Every structure is written in structure tokens, then in C-alpha cells.
């Protein structure tokens, strides 16, 4: 479970986030939506202490303010929007990076770390690629691998920043299905920034709409994916359609 309390982030005179409060219950998937520049990425980065911020975050009711980076990384795993893939690194070496929070400063990977990563590679259907260079993987395979690295941290909370932005429609749904399956298997708490509002509605238990650094709306997808709310905050006419199987489809309207 994760609670963020009055999180404020300033870049010089600009306020990127202003007193943002919210929570994600244990095992819940909360989608973080909002227009570009609303502060979605900044909120995720402040939770893992990558930006200086006021206010704080609690994981399982424990404040993270004074946690060491290593201790925090055992509680919260973070998948950035554009992960770096070093040239000439193998899949096995990459996923083992996720074990860093469990290895001492001067320490090295032990057999437990290998077991955890081998199990994850198997689960993500990447075992046959373990010895290959990252440059030989497709976008979908890389996305699964980054997810694997985050899961190797064995943290109860998983933060995802636009996890599917680089993927085609099919791979997008595949990737989110895997996250959802792993969430159920491991009881993960997921907070995910998402651009695709239809997918956000399909996969999230609840949505938080950020707009101009503030929380503009919180609620179930049916409550937040509202034509009036979305049109107001995305600055464009939006229509919300109901598919025959009862799912919400968010589509823009042409201006003309």
C-alpha cells in the first residue's frame, strides 16, 4: 500500500506538482492519467526520490523520507518511460541489475539472485534469450525484460511510467496483461502513468487524473472517464463510447 501526502515539486519558480495527495491500496492498480506536463512522471519520480520534493510518501504506513536508496528500492520498483539499454549487455546481466537493492555495496550476485532472475525470465518467456545482447531484442521483448528487472527487485510496489508507449496495439495489451497477471500472482500494488485512456480504463481499478500539477479527479474509470471532465482537462473535445461488452472507449473528436 502506498500513500502520497501533499507532494509538491518545484523547478525553480515553476510548480510541477502542488500538494498532490492520493493512495493506492495493497494489490490495487491505479492509473495515473492527465495531459502532457500534468506531473505524472514527476509524481512517480518523487516517490522514488529522483526529484527533490516537499511532502512525503508512505509505503505500508512507513515514511520513506529517511530510507536509504537501497531500502527504498526494496519497497518500490520503478520502470521509467524510456529505459536505457546499454550496448553490449546481455539479457541475463540486465535482469540481474534488478537485484542491486539486495546486494551489499561491495557484494556480488549469489545463487538466490540467479534463481530469482532465472524464474522471472522463464515466466516472461525470455529464457531462450538469456545470453543475447539487448540490441537483438524487439520492442516488446525489451519491455518485458524491463518489467522483469523491476520485478527482480521483489518490491511490493511497482511504478510504471507509460509502460507501453513504444509498442504497437497488440504488444501494448500483451504487456499490460502480463503486468496484471504478475500483480495477481505476487500481490503487487501498481501505480501506472498511462497515455491511452481506453487501456487505462480497462486495466485500472481506479484512476487519478492529474492536471497542471494538481489532482483533478479521482475515482473508478466510469467516474473519471467522463466527457466533460476529460474535455476540460485535455483541452480537446473528447467522446466516451460504451462498447457492446460494456467497456469504455475514449476517442477524440475532430475539431472541424
Amino acid at each position, binding site marked *: 500500500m502506498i500513500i502520497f501526502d501533499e507532494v509538491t515539486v518545484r523547478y525553480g519558480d515553476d510548480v510541477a506538482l502542488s500538494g498532490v495527495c492520493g493512495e493506492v491500496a495493497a494489490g490495487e492498480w491505479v492509473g495515473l492519467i492527465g495531459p502532457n506536463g500534468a506531473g505524472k512522471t514527476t509524481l512517480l519520480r518523487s516517490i522514488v526520490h529522483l526529484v527533490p520534493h516537499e511532502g512525503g510518501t508512505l509505503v505500508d504506513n512507513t515514511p520513506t523520507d529517511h530510507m536509504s536508496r537501497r531500502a*527504498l528500492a526494496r519497497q518500490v520498483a520503478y520502470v*521509467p518511460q524510456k*529505459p*536505457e539499454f546499454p550496448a553490449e*549487455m546481455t539479457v541475463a546481466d540486465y535482469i*540481474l541489475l534488478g537485484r542491486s*537493492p539486495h546486494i551489499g555495496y561491495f557484494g556480488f550476485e549469489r545463487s538466490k539472485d540467479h*534463481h530469482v532472475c*532465472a524464474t522471472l525470465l522463464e515466466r516472461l518467456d525470455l529464457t531462450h534469450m538469456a545470453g543475447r545482447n539487448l540490441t537483438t531484442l524487439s520492442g516488446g521483448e525489451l519491455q518485458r525484460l524491463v518489467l522483469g528487472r523491476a520485478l527482480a527487485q*521483489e518490491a511490493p510496489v511497482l511504478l510504471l511510467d507509460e509502460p507501453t508507449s513504444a509498442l504497437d496495439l497488440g504488444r501494448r495489451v500483451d504487456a499490460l496483461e502480463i503486468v496484471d497477471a504478475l500483480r495477481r500472482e505476487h500481490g503487487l500494488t501498481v501505480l501506472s502513468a498511462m497515455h491511452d485512456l481506453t487501456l487505462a480504463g480497462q486495466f485500472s481499478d481506479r484512476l487519478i487524473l492529474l492536471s497542471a500539477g494538481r489532482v483533478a479527479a479521482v475515482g473508478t474509470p466510469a467516474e473519471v472517464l467522463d466527457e466533460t471532465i476529460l474535455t476540460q482537462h485535455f483541452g480537446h473535445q473528447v467522446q466516451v463510447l460504451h462498447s457492446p461488452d460494456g467497456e469504455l472507449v475514449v476517442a477524440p473528436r475532430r475539431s472541424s
Partner: protein
Amino acid sequence: MSEVPVPEAPAAVLPRVSARRPVLVAVATLVGAMVIGVSVGPADISLPTVFSALAGHLPLIHYHSHTSAIDWDVIWQIRLPGVVLSGLVGAMLASGGAAYQGVFRNPLADPYLLGVAAGAGLGATIVIVESSGVDVSQVLPFAAFAGAVGAVTLTYLVGVTSGRRASTASIVLAGVAVAALLTAIQTYLQQQHEPDLQGVYAWILGSLGSASWSDVTLILPYVAVSAVVLLLHRRLLDVLRVGEDEAGALGIHAARVRLTVVAAATLGTAAAVSVSGLIGFVGIIVPHTVRLLSNASYRVVLPVSMIGGAAFLILADVVALNVQAPAEIPIGVVTAFVGAPFFLFLLRSRRTGVL
């Protein structure tokens, strides 16, 4: 909690990059370089004589060598200290370069990036021009060492306090500025004391020709500590390859790793240049050669650069001392003249899979 279950039967061991084979190849190269180093020289001593002499002086082995006292002195007092010192300096410059490339994530970083060379050069120049002809060979290493450590400390203080955070860019830029300033002062001093020009110039281009065991004992502690600290960071340098942000999210305090690695590399490099002068190219060419021939993981790059750097500088010193014997070519000229074309050749042929 998200405890991933550990399977009853051990899962297949992950295929990992192994440093064993490249390290073995590098060790073999180093042994070969040392053999060449002790057996080649202006004094004509045959290889069997060299081995016989060394065997005769090994402790616990009662082997009587027929080597003449003069030959033994040449081997023990001139060639061996030269080989050992070249090896230490080469190991330090190459592994320091690899470590700097890792913490600054910059392929062009070398151990002189933050001002070690400029500071050492200024320290040495001050001593040479102020000595007015007195023999300063005893003081020179300390002045160069102090100048080198002082310059990097200045760079770090300026770089860390400027800018919002201790970003690598502000530290590197501070290094450029500090190096430019110290080099300007050094050039000014050198021009003001024209009679000393030759001495300053000779020091700056580097020389291992007059190496002695006292030079070795002088730098050994620094180089040893530095080498151990750098080798212990090889896993962390691999984590930093995904960038400072992601390393941070993985629990690594990048700024702390950088400070420790820079401190260790600086101490070792400062000690090395204090006895050798400013030998260039080693810190860039050797690590990149290892990357091109073998692997980019720091588990490979660090140890293999260390051993390979030692071999490279021993061979460079053999060339420097013998090509125009009895005159000595500055070793910095040799490393650049031989190293740069070799590196360009490697770069063009890309991964050849030799190692």
C-alpha cells in the same frame, strides 16, 4: 509481498559474461611482456642468462647461477625495476581510465579528465624552475603528487557546488576549466625560466628509463589500494551503465559511487604520474581495446585493462629505451605513436572476436 518463489530444483544458471578467458589472455600477454622487458636492453644479456640469474636469486631454491655480477646488476637494478614500475603505472592509467569512463559515462574520459595531469605538471614545473640546478629528483614526485591531488580536489569542489546537483557535466566542465588554468600557469612559469625548459619538457613527456626500486615502493601502496577499490566497484559500474536515474531507482547512490571511484583513481593516478610523468593515451586506448576485443562489462573491462595496461606500458618502455639506444624516446610519444594507429585499426575492424 512479492516474494518470487525459489524453485525446489535449482533453475538453470544464467549465462553470464565471464572474465576468466580475457583475464587469462591478458595474463599471458603480461608474462610475455615482462620476459621481453627483462631480456631486451642495450646491454646484451641473453634470455637464458636472465632466467638463470633470476633462478639463482630466488629464495628457497638452491640453484647456483653463473651470471656475472655486472649482468646481475643490470637485471636487478635497471631492468626489473623498470618492468615493475612500467607495469604499475600502465595498470593504474588503464584501469583509472576505465573507471572514469564508467562513472562519467563518457567514452572519452581518461584519468587526466579532472586535472591530474595539469596539477602534476604544475607541481613538477614549480619544483624544477625553483630548484636552480640542484638535483630535485627526490622532491619531484611529491610535488607532482600534491599538484595532481590538489587539482582534482579543486575540480570536485567547484563542480559539485556549481549547478543544482552534482551532475557529471558540471564536474567535467570544472575539470576542463581547472586544467586550463593550471596549464596556463605552468606554461607561463616554463616560459619565464627558459634554461629549465628541457627538464620540464622531459618530465611532461614521461620517462620510466631511470626507474628504481625506491620508485616502486613509493607508489606501490597507492596503486595497490586504488586497484583494489576500483576492482571492488566493477559490479556498481555495470549498474551505472543504465544511467544515474535508473541506478538511483535500483538503490545505487550514483554520486557516492562516483566520489569513491574518483578518489581512488585519483590517488593511484597521481602516484603513477609522479614517478612517470604524463604518459597519455593509455587510459583511453587500453579500456576501449578490451571493449572492442572482448566485452563492455566492467567485470571484464576493469581487470583486463589493469593487466593489459601493465603489459602495454612495459612493451612501450622497451621500445622507448631501445629504438634509439642509448638515447631514450619519451614514452608518451611511444604510447601515442604505436597505440593510436593500433587503436584506429581495431576501431575499423570492430569486434574481431579475438579474445
